[in-house]
């Protein structure tokens, strides 16, 4: 349990920050398409959690609060932009007229968070290759040259990493 009866402690808050900062930033980035704004707005949202820390007794509630605050702040930001791009207009329109637009963004974010947690459990070497492929967009050849190994090895590790994403959890552990 992350929390206790008297709201969030400082340590708990910091743990939540470590755990959700990336997701909240990414979620806002999906709406604003602006990295700096995403980080600024995310910080504000965590600030609100800290201000309201006495009212939180369980993690799911914090999560819901964070996503709600992030959504509202991101849309407020879009509305405040003086010269708004039509892409922004579209996002504003969809987020206010379609329930599942934001829901899909949240689920997308949560899935990446989920995959991130899994990647963290991989061995350092596998993790390194995984990130060279998907974070840095390097080709198999580039990675093999960089790591001074064979292309076949890189391919093998990639397959292993993708497989371990699939098998690291049994269906029973989630299906309740």
């Amino acid at each position, binding site marked *: 349990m992350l929390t206790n009866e008297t709201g969030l402690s400082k340590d708990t808050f910091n743990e939540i920050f470590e755990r959700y900062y*990336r997701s909240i930033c990414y979620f806002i980035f999906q709406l604003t398409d602006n990295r700096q704004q995403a980080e600024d707005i995310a910080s504000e949202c965590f600030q609100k959690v800290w201000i309201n820390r006495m009212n939180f007794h369980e993690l799911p509630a914090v999560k819901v609060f964070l996503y709600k605050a992030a959504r509202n702040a991101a849309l407020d930001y879009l509305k405040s932009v003086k010269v708004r791009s039509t892409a922004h207009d*579209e996002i504003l329109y969809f987020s206010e007229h379609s329930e*599942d637009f934001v829901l899909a963004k949240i*689920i997308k974010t949560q899935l990446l968070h989920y*995959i991130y947690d899994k990647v963290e459990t991989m061995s350092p070497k596998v993790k390194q290759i995984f990130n060279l*492929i998907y*974070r840095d*967009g390097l080709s198999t050849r580039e990675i093999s040259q960089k790591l001074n190994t064979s292309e076949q090895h890189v391919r093998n590790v990639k397959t292993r990493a993708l497989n371990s994403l699939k098998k690291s959890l049994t269906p029973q552990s989630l299906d309740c």
Partner: protein
Amino acid sequence: MSAEQERIEKLFRLFVDGSLTELQRIELEGYLRKHPELDALFADLSDGDAFLAREWADFVAFDPAADTRETNRSGRVRKLFLPIQIAAGLFLFLLAFAAIWFYKAAPNNRVDMQVRTERYKNDVIAGSNRAVATLADGNLLFLGDTVSTHAAAGGNAVALSEGQIRFKPLEKDRPNNGSFNSVTTPHGGQYSVILPDGSLAKLNAGSNIRFPAAFEKKRREVEILGEVYFDVVSDKTRPFIVKLPNGAQIEVLGTSFNVKAYPDDTVIKTTLEKGSVKFKAGEDALLIKPGEQIQLATQASNPVLLKRTVGLDTETSWKDGYFNFENAELKTIMKEVARWYDVDVEYKTQITEQFSILMLPRSFSISRLLELLELTGHVKFTIDGRRVTVMT
């Protein structure tokens, strides 16, 4: 998140794990049918590792440890805590603002009814079948509801019937000499065009279509502006291509779809009724299925194609003679009104509410439509000549 949302997220996780049971898959598919945006996400996830290749870099780039504002944990808390007074002040301000706004938003219907007759100085009748055709030989045809007067004017090239002009295919031995036909509808006009290949193009108000006197052997190319409903005759050897003002184009074989590309709109909307359609803008291309719509923001510095599922009725019912809006913004509705009734719309205030008008005949005069909108209590209009003013 609601229990249902939690459940959906869980099913998605199981899908990512590759451990979705048959039953869970059926359950998930049920949710996907209900939520088109989730369906799109599901399609993204199903495409091998393309999802990771696209999203992973964006996701991991946000690093709580690299957040430069704070360097250590206790420091973070202190820093975050600092602007609490500012935040509290802002909150109170917003609360007051919201209270005023809600107070103002309370409608008062009875008074509105009494003064409506004073506000509507005149009525405006609906648009009609009207267009101007410029033929390949340079002749101009002014087309209206009555056919007889200019039946002979087009010679052998065209045939006219009520609200419709048919361009006959050129004789086979005559080469395409590079000349074009075009048909333009004014505001307050609509007209159907039968193209040389037999395809139908129905023009809404303020629209234009331009096409060669004879289509090429390999392709049928038309250019449009405004709103046009197409019912394209299938011809697998000659794709039908619609060119749009900003360089985007739509490619089809045989299908029916609606394109809305007015120069004063910021979005080009293509809605598919039957068949399939490929939409191309620059490097970007998207395929859509019936009931889906592609939206292209025309003025964005970096145009993106957006796909969404829409109610077909709201997008294509104009061609059957109806206004159909579901939870639309007033500006959207009034743009259509301005085009169909040929009026200018002036805004005294911004209206943020959404309005629905279901299947109202376009043959009704403007006052009947505006009265319906006024019944919501969120908006009032005045009509003076061809000027409509929006007030609260």
